[in-house]
């Protein structure tokens, strides 16, 4: 079926099977490969992107369902050379190691801060409950998000 997807501000007209998951439309059709797939069961959050500014797991959304909506992946987060505060926070606090959960974690954190700009450490831990990381033990991820919140004041 023919769909019009707006991703990172650019409209794309694509032709995919109705069953195409948003994550596959992003990765395989549009070659936007930052967004990763880490599980089959909506558990890990590696595929998290924003739809109209809110975090969703793109492995559990049909591409067809977000036709006409605005999708943001990590590739679209920076404004030119200026990083989003969450990207900078992850860098400054060493909030990533292998990098695989990172795009999803970053997008989940962006959505979290949009809804709660001044979170406590506990808010951050619970706000990221849908994103699994196997490398960092989350310690520095929490620090990164708090640092981003502080920087965005």
């Amino acid at each position, binding site marked *: *079926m023919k769909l019009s997807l707006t991703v990172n501000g650019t409209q794309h007209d694509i032709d995919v*099977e*109705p*069953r195409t*998951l948003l994550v*596959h439309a992003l990765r395989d059709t549009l070659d936007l490969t930052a967004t990763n797939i880490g599980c*089959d*069961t*909506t*558990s890990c*959050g590696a595929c*998290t992107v924003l*739809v109209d500014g*809110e*975090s*969703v*797991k793109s*492995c*559990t*959304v*049909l591409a*067809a*369902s977000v036709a006409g909506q605005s999708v943001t992946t990590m590739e679209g987060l920076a404004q030119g050379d200026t990083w989003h505060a969450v990207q900078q926070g992850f860098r400054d606090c060493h909030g990533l190691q292998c990098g695989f959960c990172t795009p999803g974690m970053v997008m*989940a954190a962006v*959505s*979290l801060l949009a*809804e709660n700009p001044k979170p406590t450490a506990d808010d951050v831990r*619970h*706000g990221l*409950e*849908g*994103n699994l990381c196997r490398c960092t033990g989350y310690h520095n991820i929490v620090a990164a998000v708090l640092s981003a919140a502080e920087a965005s004041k």
Partner: protein
Amino acid sequence: MIPAPFDYVRADDAAAALAALGEHGDEAKLLAGGQSLLPLMKLRLAMPSVVVDVSHATDLRYVRTDGDALAIGALTRHCDVAADKTVRQELPMLAHVAELVGDPQVRHRGTIGGSVAHSDPSADLPTALVALGASYVVQGPSGERVVPADEFATGFLETVLEPDELLTEVRVPLGVAGWGYEKFTRRAIDWATVAVAAVRRDGETRIALANMGPTVLRAAAAERALATGAGTADAAGSADEETEPGNDVTASSDYRRHLARVLTGRALAAASA
């Protein structure tokens, strides 16, 4: 993990959804937020040949006070229920429970009607709604009917909904005097191992149990005990009577029974505080 092929129909209002269901009957599945259906389809445990996407049916997305009840459109998302001022003020338990569903991403897509219609016995909102004495408005080809929440589920993932019917609204009576919701999980993101909702109103207490059988159950023995003057501890001790909890990797049936008793005690304590 990819769903089997299907035809896609987008229905952007209730009328279009009903028309699509009328046309495709039991070949079709309604896709609301998709947070329960799509995982089943990816595992190919559900293989509908037609998917009717109602995620943009904004006419079913609302919260309004309607007499002595709160009326919530079936396609109102969990995050919207949790954040809604009226819900938070009039039915704080519902806002609290909506925030316990899944994780933020799931709450950004999942809907109250989707959760109710999916009828998973371990789901939070159906459990809370049974304790709250909610009812569900169902539209079909022959008009509208209203089903009490505790008569809605007929079995594991099965409900009274006919293939050509659409759940349009959740109605929750106001006037809650006290409530408690206790969810036990291994991890924040997990489905409830066991959850207990207790709601006190008009001198009566309703207790609903998640994951203690094939459907959300009332803790009937505990409710009877309370009605006949038993203390909360005694009543909680009978919370698992007439239940049939399963064994799985998360918990044994025995342990679930124990949890049901402990959590009922806590929920009742919160409800009477």
